Structure formats: C-alpha cells, structure tokens
C-alpha cells in the first residue's frame, strides 16, 4: 500500500507487528516531496510511537477483519466470545479489555478486530444498559463526589451514579468513559 493511501485508522505491519494509524500530519513543501508524520499505535501492546514516511514509501498492508461477536462467559483471566457468523470461539485475555470488562454481560454483542486468527481489539457498544444489584446508601462524606455514590452492577462492575439510583434500576453506561449516562427504568 502506498503511504499516500494511509489515513487515520488504517492498519499496517512494521516487521510483522500490526499498527493502527492514530493521526497523520501531512506536510509538503510546494515543489518538494510529501512527508507523512504518523502517530502509530501498536496493536499488540497498545504503545504508541511516531514515525515519518515520505511520498512513494510503501507500507505492508494487513488484513484485519472486524467481526461481530457475543460475549459468552469468563474463564479464569480470559473472556470468551463467539463469532456470530461462523460460531468460532475466541478467548481474550483480561489485559486487552482493561476496565471495560466490568460491563460485559452475557450475550452482549461487541466488535472484535481479528488478524490471522488473533484478536487485536474488542470494541464495546458505546452505551450498555445494566441493572444495579447493590446500591450503597448515599454518602455525604466525600465532598468531591458528594453528588455521586458507588453501586454494583449485574456484571460485577462498579459505577458512580447519582443518589436517586436504587437497586433494581436499569442504568445506561458510557463504555468509552466508564461513566453513568442516565437511568433507563426504575423499580416501582
């Protein structure tokens, strides 16, 4: 693939390691060669690096498929997902999911990037709706979070919510920021 075709979110290999392009800065002196200052994210370990390319440089294309999978269950330090197309199961290590693992509910459909059978990335829906199973009493001690209290969700996750949220309520959670969005239904 010609470097000119690379844009944000393009994925390519450097020495066999897949990278995703996070940002491209295109610089071109009027009559001169184009330069591409790329910010790259290593899809194996999540680290980022800067790399400069010049016009007519080539990069090694990588085939990363985006598959819809549903979450099945947790097994030790791994989370097991099933591909909705071919029913293949993939075991994903805890580290790859980070804090988002606390919002995984059985049956949740997520988008999984797969390269040569290896899972690179799991993307949760932006919002998930989960039931509150254990609601702490509203606390007045902490001034910074005076408006919020911690509750436990059906998935085992812990979330800061406004004081009016009770056990049995369904709340909407933003999985990108791990924050409460709104109460969807409340138990009468």
């Amino acid at each position, binding site marked *: 693939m010609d470097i*000119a075709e690379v844009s944000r979110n393009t994925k390519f290999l450097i020495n066999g390691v897949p990278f995703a392009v996070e940002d491209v800065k*295109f610089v*071109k*002196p*009027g009559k001169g*060669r184009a*330069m591409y200052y790329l910010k790259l994210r290593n899809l194996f370990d999540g680290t980022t690096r800067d790399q400069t390319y010049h*016009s007519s440089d080539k990069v090694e294309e990588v085939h990363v498929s985006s598959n819809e999978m549903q979450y099945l269950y947790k097994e030790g330090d791994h989370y097991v997902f099933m591909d909705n197309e071919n029913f293949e199961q993939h075991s994903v290590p805890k580290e790859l999911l980070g804090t988002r693992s606390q919002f995984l509910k059985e049956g949740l459909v997520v988008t999984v990037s797969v390269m040569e059978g290896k899972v690179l990335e799991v993307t949760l829906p932006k919002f998930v709706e989960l039931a509150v199973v254990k609601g702490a009493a509203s606390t007045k001690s902490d001034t910074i979070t005076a408006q919020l209290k911690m509750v436990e969700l059906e998935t085992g996750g812990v979330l800061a919510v406004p004081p009016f949220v009770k056990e049995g309520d369904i709340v909407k959670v933003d999985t990108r920021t791990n924050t409460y969005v709104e109460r969807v239904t409340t138990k009468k």
Partner: protein
Amino acid sequence: MAEDESLRLSQIKANLERRALIYDVIRAFFRSEGFLEVETPLLVPTVAPEKYITPFTVNGWFLSTSPEMHMKRLLAAGYGKIFQICHCFRKSERGRLHNPEFTMLEWYRVGADYMQIIQDTERLVLTLANRLRLGTTIRYQGAEIDLVSPWPRITVRQAFLNSAGWDPFNRLDEERFEVDLVEKVIPSFDTSRPTVLMDYPVAMASLARLRPGSLPVAERAEVFIGGLELANAYSELTDAAEQERRFKQEIETLEREGKRGIVMPERFLESLSSLPECGGIALGVDRLVMLFCDASSIDEVVAFPWDAV
C-alpha cells in the same frame, strides 16, 4: 449527517463571507494595476512534468495542476500583465494545509523579475489587511504579525547555514533539503514578520530562470507568513531548450517510478521562444484566507473540503 453539515457550514460562514471579500479586493487590486483577468483550461492534455506533483486523470487527459503553462502562452502572444484565480488539482495532497482541489492566484508581469513580483505580493497583502480593517498587524494562531514592507529577505543558502548547519549549494542532498526545510529552517523564521526565502539551488529551479555567477542560483522566492508557505515566485525561464531539458529529466524520473502518461508539453515549449522576460507567482488563496480568518485548517475556509464533498 445533514444536521452535522448544516452546523459545520454555519460555523464557517463568517470565514466564507470574508473569503468573498478577499476575492473582491484581489480583483480590484489587479484591475487598478492594469492587469487583465484571464481564464485558462482546467481539463488539459498534459501538465508540467514535476516529480512530486501527481495529477488526476480524466479520460486520458488531466485536471490542471497549475495554470502556469497556459498563462505563459498568453504572455508569449503579447499579453503583458495577467492574473487568474482558478482551481488546481493535485492527487493525494491532503492535510491541515492541503486539499486535493484548491484555489490558486497566479499573476505575471512582462519586464519584471522575481523580486518585483515579491513587491507586488507585499502590496497585495497590505491592501487586503487595510481593506479588512486590520491595519498593518494581523493576529494569526496566537502570533502578532507585522506586515509592513519590505518583508525580511533571506537567501536559501544563509537560512540553511544558520538553521540546518549545512550549505545546500555545496553538494545538494534534495531529500535532506526538504526535511530540514520543514523541520529546521521554516520553524526558525521570525513569527512576528513575513519571510521571503530566496535564491534556490539550481537543481530546484523548476520553471525559474538561473542567475549565473560564482554561485549560480535559481531566481525563485517563497513567501512564508505565520508558518504558512503562501506563494512561490520566479523570474520565469524563457529558454525553451533549457526548459525542455529540465522537463525531460522530470519525465525520466517519473517513468523510473512507473508513472507514465505525462508527455512533453510541446505547445508550451513552442511558445517559450516568444516569451518575453517576465516574472510570475503562484499564491495559495486558501492559505491567504486562512491567514486573514485566523483559521488553523484549510477545512475552515472551504465549504466542501475533500472528505465532505
């Protein structure tokens, strides 16, 4: 989506209004100087062969990458002072300062050299600042820029010796030249003033005339304001044989890279024998508008940039 678009377009409306005013001022400026506004074709059978400019192809023809060759054909036919505002198309040029379809202002003066054209540029930019009621100082991306002429001039040689620590006139390394230009030389310019970078190595002359001497230079000058590369002026090359030799070199380089299809612009070369001594410039209108709108990206001064067409 439609909602996003109407929000985006409403946010840049003031910039587009200012853009229209800038066009009015540019036209009035050149009319008052006795220039004729001309139009040349956007769909052309060949473009000037330049190794770092890639044209779009349309049924075996090209979208124009620059109006330069047609404008020189007008000069060769006796037109003395001409200007044009037109769209140019350059494949794969996309970034904060680039859109593959962009707007160019070019003007040419018979009997002038590159530095007289730079003086035109100084007067045009000051006229714009004045008509936009900004006085002689503008604010761009946090910096105050004093536009009073003459703008500081520095030779390519001096600028590289000062900021990059090497002399591009002593064994030019073109690749290193561009990297250092972008990473060392341009960032060293005084941000409170425009800068005119002049006298390029002969290998980077393109369509500019050479000035012989103990240190031969290409009579080419570039204007930088607020970190933006705004315009590129030449004392125009009128030597058809020399121009053909340079084009041949570029075509060979293009063919080595497997880029075929750009043929020798014969009609342009034929006209060169009648081209009088003249100077000309290509100025990026989108960047000029960015400067006067304090816009950080070309997307803020164009209604429908590449990704939104």
